[in-house]
């Protein structure tokens, strides 16, 4: 679906901008400038305010990124449980560094704060789905689900 149609479908919802942004990201994985401008128009806000919302929340990205967004918790419990090794495994497996996307546009690697699953650390999320007790050995199998 075109970003314009996606945003239009939230036009009548109070505070619909954030939901519209999520919906655009489900389609495009990020918020292109045109989508932010369009959201400003639809929700009758200055473009600067729409841009402020798009950059305030870490879930949103205004920079182009891979389709499947992998987020690795960098908070203390995951850190202690060996998040760094998971990071290394992901970077090795995908051939990119944290904050980058794969050349084929399949994956983006990002850090996140705690996602509230500290009973089973280290934790990663892919497109919002939580993967618990992740180890470097499990990484290839997890990624295979999204390839």
């Amino acid at each position: 679906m075109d970003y314009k149609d996606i945003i239009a479908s939230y036009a009548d919802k109070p505070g619909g901008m954030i939901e519209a942004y999520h919906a655009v990201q489900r389609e495009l994985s990020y918020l292109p400038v045109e989508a932010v401008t369009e959201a400003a128009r639809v929700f009758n806000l200055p473009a600067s305010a729409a841009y402020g919302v798009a950059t305030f929340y870490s879930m949103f990205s205004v920079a182009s990124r891979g389709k499947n967004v992998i987020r690795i918790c960098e908070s203390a419990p995951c850190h202690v449980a060996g998040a760094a090794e998971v990071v290394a495994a992901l970077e090795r497996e995908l051939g990119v560094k944290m904050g980058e996307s794969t050349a084929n546009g399949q994956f983006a690697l990002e850090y996140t704060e705690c996602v509230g699953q500290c009973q089973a650390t280290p934790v990663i999320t892919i497109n919002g789905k939580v993967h618990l007790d992740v180890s470097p050995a499990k990484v290839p199998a997890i990624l295979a689900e999204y390839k």
Partner: protein
Amino acid sequence: MVNLTIDGIKVSVPEGSTILQAAKEVGIKIPTLCHHPDQAVKANCRVCVCEVEGNRLLAAACAQPVMEGMVVKTRTPKVIEARKTILELILSHHPQDCLNCIRNGNCELQDLANEYFIRDNPFTLKVRGLKKDYSTPSLFRDPDKCVLCRRCIEACTVVQSVNALGLENRGVLSMVVPTMGGDLMDSACVMCGQCIHACPVGAIGEVEEIDKLLAAIADPDKVVVTQIAPAVRVAIGEEVGMKTGDMPMDVFVAGLRQVGFDYVLHTNFTADLTILEEGNELLQRLKEGGTLPMFTSCSPGWINFCETFYPDLLDNLSTCKSPQQMFGPLVKTYWADKMGIDPAKIYSVSIMPCTAKKFEAARPEMNASGYRDVDLVLTTREIGRLFRMSGLDFDKLAGTNFDSWMGAYTGAAVIFGASGGVMEAALRTVYEVVTGKTLEDVNFEVTRGITGIKEAEVDLDGTLVKVAIANGLSNARKLMDQVRAGESPYHFIEIMACPGGCIGGGGQPITKANAKRVERIDSIYVEDEKCAIRKSHENPEVKTLYDEFLHEPLGHKSHELLHTHYQAKNKKYL
């Protein structure tokens, strides 16, 4: 009323007051940084923290409402330690660059660091290294210096409704940015410079061009001519230690000659001329069914705003150039001829209360004289710096007069500097032109003051003319929406981009509160009262200009030199 005690002093203030307001009542100064007297409470810097008895945590005085029986302490060791730490943390992100900063000596953060004798900051200096923005000819931004108080954002959004500035990201990563994190030039910025007044530090300022002036003065082949805008005199004294309005005009002129200007002329002359052209344009539109309401076109910030947000209403704009841009072509044609000076040698400098004027002078079409009409625009603040550098003692300087042919002016030109002034000046002239009668009382009080929108109805011998005046662009927006909806009852609308008019322009001495704007407005009308001639059409030099050169208002020569058309800006983001 609520009763409380601050530092042992009893005070009674209306319900809803803050500790900061209550403390002010009894003469206790609580330090602030993000607080602005004319803006909403922000409470993000925490410099104003105080102890409230019974509370574990310190309270931000700017945001904490008073409560009955509250006991506040504003200078305990705990408070002082907290404030020092807060300042040290802010300074740990702030370039230690005061000596090179445009706000050196006029910076709220510098003052606080001094008051709290910050010496050995225990925190490691960590400047973000963000890109400076020199994309506009008027304003620069130096985001590294930003203390994230957000006062500029409120000036740009609430006061001006331009919304060029906003916040990007969150927490330690947050920064004030032009729309989409791009350059100011690509945003909707109209270059009014109200953000400069709002900024407590040197994160935003005018593009300084004093060096160009000094080079021109040093060049023996250049004849350096200047014009002074109506709003400058009332404020220039503030830059050299005088009270608002105290700099006598003739002393100001003498000062300009001392720093090296060859000829000193006055934008007031072309302000009077503007009234003749614009007044006649209005009458023509009324008579011939032209586009109404007609909008004034003196304020370049407003012109930028209209081109950006209301391109469909550009036909409503008067075709008259601003007084600065009428002066430009005339000084290199009419005046050069009268003085026997080669116009190619003239370096035309205007002294303006305005940052948008720098942009206006640089518009490509502003070359009606065959040369760049205005070569350089300096703000009141830049001239203030030049004066301070010159070491002149203005108390001892003997005054001198303006030079001839474009230096005479009337009270009607003086009031151009305040919101409502152009309207009042126009009414003084239009009334006499239409009715053929003498206007006994030239004072149109209803047009005066800092109120956002003013309206009046004037009886021109049976013809009722409805006028409106807006200062500050959020007020302009209200009138424009009305016009766009086809519901505007007015014939003539004056718009000044800056609150209070040009006296509050982006190039004026740093204006920390609207109270200062009101003081300057008062000063403008005192000057008007003192003028022997107070109607533009009675200006003797303007009469000579018409007799010898222009021949008639809206005539062929006028159209060639004094009128223009503006175009839609088609900005990418609004």
